[in-house]
């Protein structure tokens, strides 16, 4: 490759005719290879990013040919819309809770699973199954599990411990924690698998050195494993928060956003405004607001955490 680059550069001054032709045809061939993917991505991925912003400046219901340009009016409305603001607060609550509980839990199980014992891969599979199960079907099962009287399995089980039946998804205070629990259950396996990959990439010498220094198990975990695992933890934290802010299917199936709007989320609001009330501009503005929030949170995590992430060199 390097030698070829050099010849290319030497020849760049006066490329011979057949050579230029060949390069032209290689370019054309490469574009043909990329064309199918590029076409789809351009129309349904890149163009819509710009178009969404344009639409967010309009008042438009799609059926009416009249589109009113309202500037940043939709964004101004967002900031005063109590339903959207509470959706944003609920989504933040959901995201922080599901990541703050889910990630440490995944780490504990990854460390437990990171050993050569029979049965470990069986446990890993058990934890992973919920991740490949459709959220829609899983939510239906959890809805039944959370049934609010003594017939629900969960109420039956806590009844065995002497706790009276709870209302779960129907209780304004319990509904969001109940939704968070389902989200953690669903994502745990993925986080464990990624943590395991991170744990296995730590070279044995670090552990040997720690052992020679007489470190106990907790010290090894605290001062060797945790710092060397920090790139994985950081990665999971970032993608976990991004994914959590887009929560929609769970409240759609479990609570329809209730009770008292306590599980109404940003994407739920976007769905309602755009595809039930057909307020295209307002929905697009909500999508961009979500984008902005996710972007800010990712940047904040970067600012605060990159100094603490140790990259093994």
């Amino acid at each position, binding site marked *: 490759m390097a030698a070829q680059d050099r010849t290319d550069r030497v020849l760049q001054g006066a490329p011979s005719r057949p050579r230029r032709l060949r390069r032209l045809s*290689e*370019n054309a*061939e*490469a574009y043909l*290879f*990329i064309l*199918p*993917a*590029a076409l*789809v991505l351009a129309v*349904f*991925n*890149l163009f*819509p990013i710009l178009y*969404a912003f344009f639409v967010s400046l309009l008042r438009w219901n799609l059926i009416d040919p009249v589109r009113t340009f309202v500037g940043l009016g939709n964004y101004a409305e967002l900031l005063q819309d109590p339903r959207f603001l509470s959706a944003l607060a609920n989504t933040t609550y959901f995201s922080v809770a599901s990541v703050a509980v889910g990630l440490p839990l995944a780490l504990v*199980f990854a460390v437990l*699973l*990171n*050993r*050569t*014992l029979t049965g470990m*891969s*069986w446990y*890993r599979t*058990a*934890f992973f*199954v*919920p991740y*490949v*199960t*459709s*959220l*829609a*079907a899983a939510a*239906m*099962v959890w809805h*039944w*599990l959370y049934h609010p009287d003594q017939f629900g399995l969960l109420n*039956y089980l806590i009844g065995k411990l002497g706790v009276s039946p709870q209302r779960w998804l129907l209780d304004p205070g319990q509904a969001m924690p109940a939704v968070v629990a389902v989200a953690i259950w669903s994502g*745990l396996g993925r986080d464990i*698998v*990624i943590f*395991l*990959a991170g744990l*296995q990439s*730590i*070279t*044995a010498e670090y552990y*040997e050195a720690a*052992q020679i220094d007489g470190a106990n198990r907790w010290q090894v975990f605290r001062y060797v494993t945790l710092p060397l695992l920090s790139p994985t933890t950081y990665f*999971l934290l970032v*993608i976990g928060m991004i994914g959590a802010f*887009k929560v929609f299917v769970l409240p759609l199936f479990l609570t329809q956003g209730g009770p008292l709007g306590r599980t109404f989320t940003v*994407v739920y609001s976007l769905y309602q405004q*755009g*595809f039930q009330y057909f307020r295209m501009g307002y929905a*697009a503005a909500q*999508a961009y607001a*979500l*984008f902005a929030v996710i972007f800010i949170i990712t940047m904040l995590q970067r600012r605060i955490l990159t100094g603490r992430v140790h990259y093994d060199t």
Partner: protein
Amino acid sequence: MARGSTITPTSSRPAPRRPWLTHLPIHVALLMTAGLVLLPYYLMVVTSLKPVREVFTDPFTWIPSRLAWENYVDAWNHAPFGRYFVNSMIISASETAGVLVTSALAGYAFARMRFVGREVLFTLFLGTLMVPGEVQLVPNYITIVRLGWLNSYSALIVPWLASVFGIFLMRQFFAGIPQELQDAATMDGASHWTFLWRVVVPLSTPAFITVALLTFLGSWNALTWPLIVTTTPEMRPVMVGLLSFSGEWGTQPRLLMAAATFSVLPVLVLFFALQRYFIQGIARAGLKF
């Protein structure tokens, strides 16, 4: 199940052989948690097989007196699930085939061809991963309406025929194929096209299986987009069908659980058959598809 796993949990420390008993607490802890994680599956299957009178009981009925298979027949017949399944199969299969072809072609170009604008285009593609897919919902819906594609397979399939994740994964894999192979093929007069299909593709089976599985899974489980672009039952995939079914038959857990069971079955079978590719793909890429 342990067989064939590529990411085997190996301790980095050379552990001395300990008697089995010392690991008992770990096994007990893991077994109990795994049981809790799988409890919803037990509830799903056991409810789906309960006779009507054993669904709402106090205390809970752990084992039904007989297996009420008729629940499956009832659930299947109470909604056009046959149609939903055909739709889902068509959508997921076409999407998977499409993503494999477009990703292989583009991935090959990015990995092994030299052309003007290669880095810029690749960065542009990767950049779209930073934008949450929800941003594209409204404009894509408008595009679909303008094309007259509402309630059509085109609306459900075409927007998903290319995947940045697929292109990225293929590019990484193709870049690892030795240059000598390409030189030899070029010497024999093979074009890029021939080299791709005759040499690169056969050497890249794991990459193809991983992309195919993750695409199929994502497509089968997708809800938001199909919910938006379908209004008639005839065009619904299974998961959107489940939503309307749960609205209609919400008071009958035995029917809901039967429907949930047969809806997740295709993906679970695929997962258990090829789980090492799933887990490897997730561990390596870590990206949600």
